[in-house]
């Protein structure tokens, strides 16, 4: 595949992620902050987000497995995850976190467990989509092309 085709693929993929709500405008803001002095900024932040996600999802799982469940503790983890997902533009993850927090407040265990499952799904989807995005970027750069920014 040549550079032009790759660039078109990248643009389409980014547009789809925005359209389907995986990403919101905050992700575009991150891309705007990337420049020659900080060429890997987006990838670095996203890597940090992946690490954070795995840690927090693990903590939530553990907290929900305790007897009795400490909903304040669960909420603390969800609050943190809501914050970091908002910061990177992970819109669907952020929205599930908002619902999750409501269930923590009403101490609804079933609702919490369902939200945790949803979070794991959303995170997994997002991770795959972003990794594909970064792979396309790498291919374009390897072929000597420039990365089209999100409109």
């Amino acid at each position, binding site marked *: 595949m040549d550079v032009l085709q790759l660039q078109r693929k990248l643009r389409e993929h980014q547009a789809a992620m925005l359209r389907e709500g995986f990403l919101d405008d*905050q992700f575009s*803001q991150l891309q705007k902050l990337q420049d020659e002095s*900080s060429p890997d900024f987006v990838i670095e932040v996203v890597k*940090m987000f992946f690490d954070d996600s795995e840690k927090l999802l693990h903590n939530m799982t553990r907290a929900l497995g305790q007897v009795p469940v400490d909903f304040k503790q669960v909420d603390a983890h969800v*609050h*943190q995850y809501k*914050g*970091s997902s*908002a*910061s990177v533009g992970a819109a669907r993850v952020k929205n599930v976190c908002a619902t999750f927090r409501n269930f923590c407040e009403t101490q609804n265990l079933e609702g919490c467990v369902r939200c945790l499952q949803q979070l794991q799904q959303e995170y997994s989807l997002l991770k795959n989509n972003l990794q594909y995005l970064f792979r396309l970027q790498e291919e374009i750069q390897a072929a000597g092309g420039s990365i089209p920014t999100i409109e």
Partner: protein
Amino acid sequence: MGLAAESQFHVLAVDDSLIDRMLIERLLKTSSFHVTAVDSGSKALKFLGLVEEEQRNEEPSFVAQKTHNQDVDVNLIITDYCMPEMTGYDLLRKIKESKSLKDIPVVIMSSENVPSRINRCLEEGAEEFFLKPVQQSDVNKLRPHLLKSKVKEVGEEDQLINLNRKDINEILA
């Protein structure tokens, strides 16, 4: 120390979230600020030399506050509100209670839009309250606050010079 530091404003950023620290640091650097980022209120106070100052006050000391302040030249502090152990509000209060630090402008950031929280911070002396995620347009609002404090600093230096002249005249009289 003096002339080199004039060219760039130095911002101290405080946030327990690594991602948010990366973000705020990048935002500030693209606006040409020099940035120090720490992950807690206690680390911020340590960096500002506040702990040391408290120790100094126990002994008689004739060292002017101004001299001490110049060891760490911070022009603005931007801090997250929700942090374990010491919240951004606690940090704000400690800074405003400190003779040497109270004139440094403080900005609070929070992911939650709670009007009572915002008012409390503004009443305690915070210059601005930003909702997270912080945007470039928010960071652009910082410059006027920094310029205001720079002008104040220069004013104080003039007073110091005038005072010395007065002393000299008295001695010579």
